[in-house]
């Protein structure tokens, strides 16, 4: 038996409503839109087959985010091993930013974001973009609230370095930032 009761229409609607957030989280987390959607797909499948373990009325989004990040991290570890074996081919693909120009500061920020350690990146995204409280983020990441706070702070500091933001007036990537970013790219 599947142990999977029919999802109530409400639950299905809630799942659908959570998809934009899951996608935004996934893209910010892994930096690759295609892979992000694969992550979301896996998350939905996994969530669906584990609906019984979700207590309706609790925070569905947090539950889904937890599933997504767990999938991400298990793949991340796997991929790191693969990358070592395959001449950085996957790394190169992962590092490919969306090709549109005209959003230069978007792209530079995205690049910088991907240079953060994943744990710092996810903490920053959860708190700074997804709208979770520190407590919720800590629950999602299965760590202490203080850990989340320090990860967010370190993420900020590192990003400020990468983007060469020193003050309000010195905002925006400049030549040297680009040089640093491209020099820092995998070679």
């Amino acid at each position, binding site marked *: 038996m599947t142990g999977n009761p029919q999802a109530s229409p409400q639950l299905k609607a809630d799942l659908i409503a959570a998809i934009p957030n899951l996608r935004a989280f996934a893209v910010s987390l892994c930096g690759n839109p295609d892979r992000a959607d694969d992550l979301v797909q896996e998350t*939905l499948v996994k969530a*669906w087959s584990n609906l019984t373990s979700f207590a309706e009325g609790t925070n569905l989004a947090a539950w889904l985010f937890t599933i997504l990040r767990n999938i991400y991290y298990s793949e991340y570890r796997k991929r790191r091993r693969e990358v070592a074996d395959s001449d950085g081919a996957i790394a190169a693909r992962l590092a490919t930013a969306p090709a549109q120009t005209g959003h230069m500061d978007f792209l530079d920020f995205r690049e910088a974001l991907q240079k953060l350690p994943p744990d710092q990146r996810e903490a920053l995204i959860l708190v700074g973009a997804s709208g979770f409280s520190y407590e919720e983020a800590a629950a999602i990441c299965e760590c202490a609230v203080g850990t989340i706070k320090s990860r967010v702070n370190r993420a900020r500091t590192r990003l400020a370095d990468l983007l060469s933001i020193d003050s309000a007036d010195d905002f925006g990537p400049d030549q040297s930032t680009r040089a640093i970013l491209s020099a820092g790219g995998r070679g």
Partner: protein
Amino acid sequence: MDDSVRKKQGTARARVVPTRSHDGLSSGRDAGGGDRLRSEQTSASVVSLNSSRKSRPRASVRKDGGPSNVEGHIGKQLKAVYDDVLNQPIPDRFLDLLTQLETKTGSKESGDQ
């Protein structure tokens, strides 16, 4: 006038553009305003998560003096990147997937996992 409206929305939503340094992210001194912000933020996130909000893309640069700190700039760019995806329509593949899962569950009452 537009600015003040936007500012309000920014606060009520999940901390869109941190315009103050005590937005609860930067230090431990969020005792006073922090609770208020947090509860607003929580309800805002519930709204946004449950209603697939269709917020307008945020203006790229605030004209009202803007964030006066590094956190503000980073927060703003992060939100821009995030919202860029958040505001996209849900791809059909996911709706199809859920329908598929639903059908499968229905027809395979005693199927395997």
